[in-house]
């Protein structure tokens, strides 16, 4: 096992964890206020596309990030109002949103850039890596973190911030109340609907950041459907973490390592059709194991 913790694997693991973490935080926030967000995949995709478009037209990575946040928030209005004011079924809305994201980004790719499949251009400014030579030689953690984008650090900071807000502030108490006991929260004067709408939009911003990391963080290209199931893996992380940001983050770390492992196995010459399955198999296994445990606990109670 220790043979697997090479600098290469650590770096690709942290790289893979970053978007998962941001998306999972978005899912945690939504879950906390009682909106099951299955649209992370689509929100990330919209963010990834907008990041590339923003960076290309504004010639700056920061412009790309701003565009990603803006586009993902606007896109999330569908879920924010659809699941609250219009009382639509969140599952149906999220399925629709994921397909809309896939279709819309593919359409805009053709209309704006005249290409299909992938779009890359020297004019796209990628996210720079923050290099910290000091920690470069620290085994394992240093290998993972010495050269990552700012979004990696933002993601880690946000895990702390979200946990702090949720569990240590009055705002967090209200948010949890909105999810767990909406009627009680309403009685206490909390505008449940408004809290849900704003939280879903903030979640959209986080998912947009996740998308920006995907498209601008590594090679600065947009590929159709480039979120490639990561949004679903983040959904599972949220479920495993039971809407707790720290537990969800732990699940993301596990899935990120599975992703890095698949990259590693591929570099060893294994066909990528097989190695690509690794994160999904690990995710399925984690889903199965965690629910089994919960099952036996319940039977013990009974």
């Amino acid at each position, binding site marked *: 096992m220790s043979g697997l913790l090479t600098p290469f694997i650590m770096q690709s693991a942290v790289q893979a964890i970053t978007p998962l973490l941001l998306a999972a935080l978005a899912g945690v926030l939504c879950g906390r206020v009682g909106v099951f967000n299955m649209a992370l995949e689509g929100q990330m995709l919209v963010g990834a596309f907008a990041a590339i478009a923003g960076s290309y037209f504004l010639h700056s990575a920061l412009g790309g990030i701003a565009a990603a946040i803006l586009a993902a928030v606007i896109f999330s209005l569908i879920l924010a109002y659809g699941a609250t004011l219009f009382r639509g079924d969140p599952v149906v809305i999220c399925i*629709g*949103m994921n*397909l809309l994201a896939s279709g819309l980004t593919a359409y805009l790719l053709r209309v704006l850039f005249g290409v299909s499949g992938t779009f890359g251009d020297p004019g796209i400014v990628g996210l720079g890596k923050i290099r910290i030579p000091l920690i470069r030689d620290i085994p394992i953690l240093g290998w993972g973190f010495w050269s990552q984008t700012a979004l990696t650090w933002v993601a880690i900071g946000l895990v702390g911030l979200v946990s702090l807000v949720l569990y240590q502030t009055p705002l967090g108490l209200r948010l949890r109340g909105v999810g767990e006991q909406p009627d009680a929260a309403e009685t206490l004067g909390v505008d449940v609907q408004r809290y849900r709408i704003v939280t879903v939009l903030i979640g959209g911003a986080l998912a947009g950041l996740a998308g920006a990391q995907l498209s601008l963080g590594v090679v600065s290209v947009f590929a159709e459907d480039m979120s490639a199931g990561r949004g679903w893996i983040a959904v599972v992380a949220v479920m495993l973490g039971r809407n707790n940001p720290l537990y969800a983050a732990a699940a993301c770390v596990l899935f990120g390592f599975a992703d890095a492992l698949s990259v590693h196995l591929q570099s060893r010459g294994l066909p990528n059709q097989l190695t690509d*399955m690794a994160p999904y198999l690990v995710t399925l296994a984690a889903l199965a194991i965690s*629910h089994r445990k919960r099952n036996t606990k319940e039977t013990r109670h009974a």
Partner: protein
Amino acid sequence: MTPIAPWYLRPLAAVTAILFAVLIGGMLIIASGANPLAAYWQIVVGSLSPASLSDTLNWATPLVGMTLAAAIPLRGGMVNLGGDGQMVIGGLVGALVPIYLPGLPGPLAALLSLIAAALAGGLYAALAAWGQTRHNIPMLISSLLMSYPAVGITSYIVRFPLRDTATGLPQSEMIPEAARLLTLSGALNLGVLIMAAIGVLAVYIDRTTVAGYELRMRGSNLRFAAYGGVRLPRQAILTMFTSGAIAGTVGAIVVLGSQFRFIDGALLSPAYTWSGLMAALLANGEPLGAIAAGLFFAALQTGGFAMQRETSVPRVLTMVLQSVVILFLAMRHGIARRAT
């Protein structure tokens, strides 16, 4: 209590949603610098004119199949998001049976291939249902996640161990001519009739049999169904098996009828699973309405090819239109409920 809605409410809502989608799509077409009326006209001509009708039906065969695969669980309040995996497994099994059992007479090989594909797709879907009923693993997510390994393994198989060495492309060998589905006319083959039969059967079972009634009962009230003596776990597994079996059959029909081999990625790129799911959602799982919605989406997509050819508006626009329809319908549902 909510009064029973009149029968025309849902079709009316669907039509309204479609009009909204056409409007939004029109704006997107204008944004791309093209003429929306010309683009939409090409969709109509390219799908419904006598010359293109057989193309539409040919495209509708897998799409309506995946619509039924999504609609049947939806009828019982379940969602099968794993159609892609079940379809590729069916497609691969459907291709391998006639290729590696060359001694069989053609029609028998085709029949065996369809049955094997249905079984394989059905069992794979049933596995997700079993996980839910036995181990409480949420099927909504597990069915979707299970698609990725299925796609990966089938892709690996036709790229490495069972690759057609003659072409060097990621695809299986050709299926012997005798085992291919009979061509009816032009692009149409026997597959369209098989799918029509499955559609008729689905409507019949839904409307007249005990199993259909019990599934509808589950969909409208899970606890009432359990109280009424429906064995819920068994029903979930059988329903998902049926759904997966149809998805597997779709894979085999495409392979035996149009592509004559398993080509990596070819079953997935048209996104039949997702269009089918949206068509099923449009009709809320009611089979006849779902089939109608599936045919509508098939016409839309077939017309999309003509639109792209004639007006240079990318045909992926039709995907946007479909999702906008679903989103509007999901919202309207809420407004109506709020009003009552």
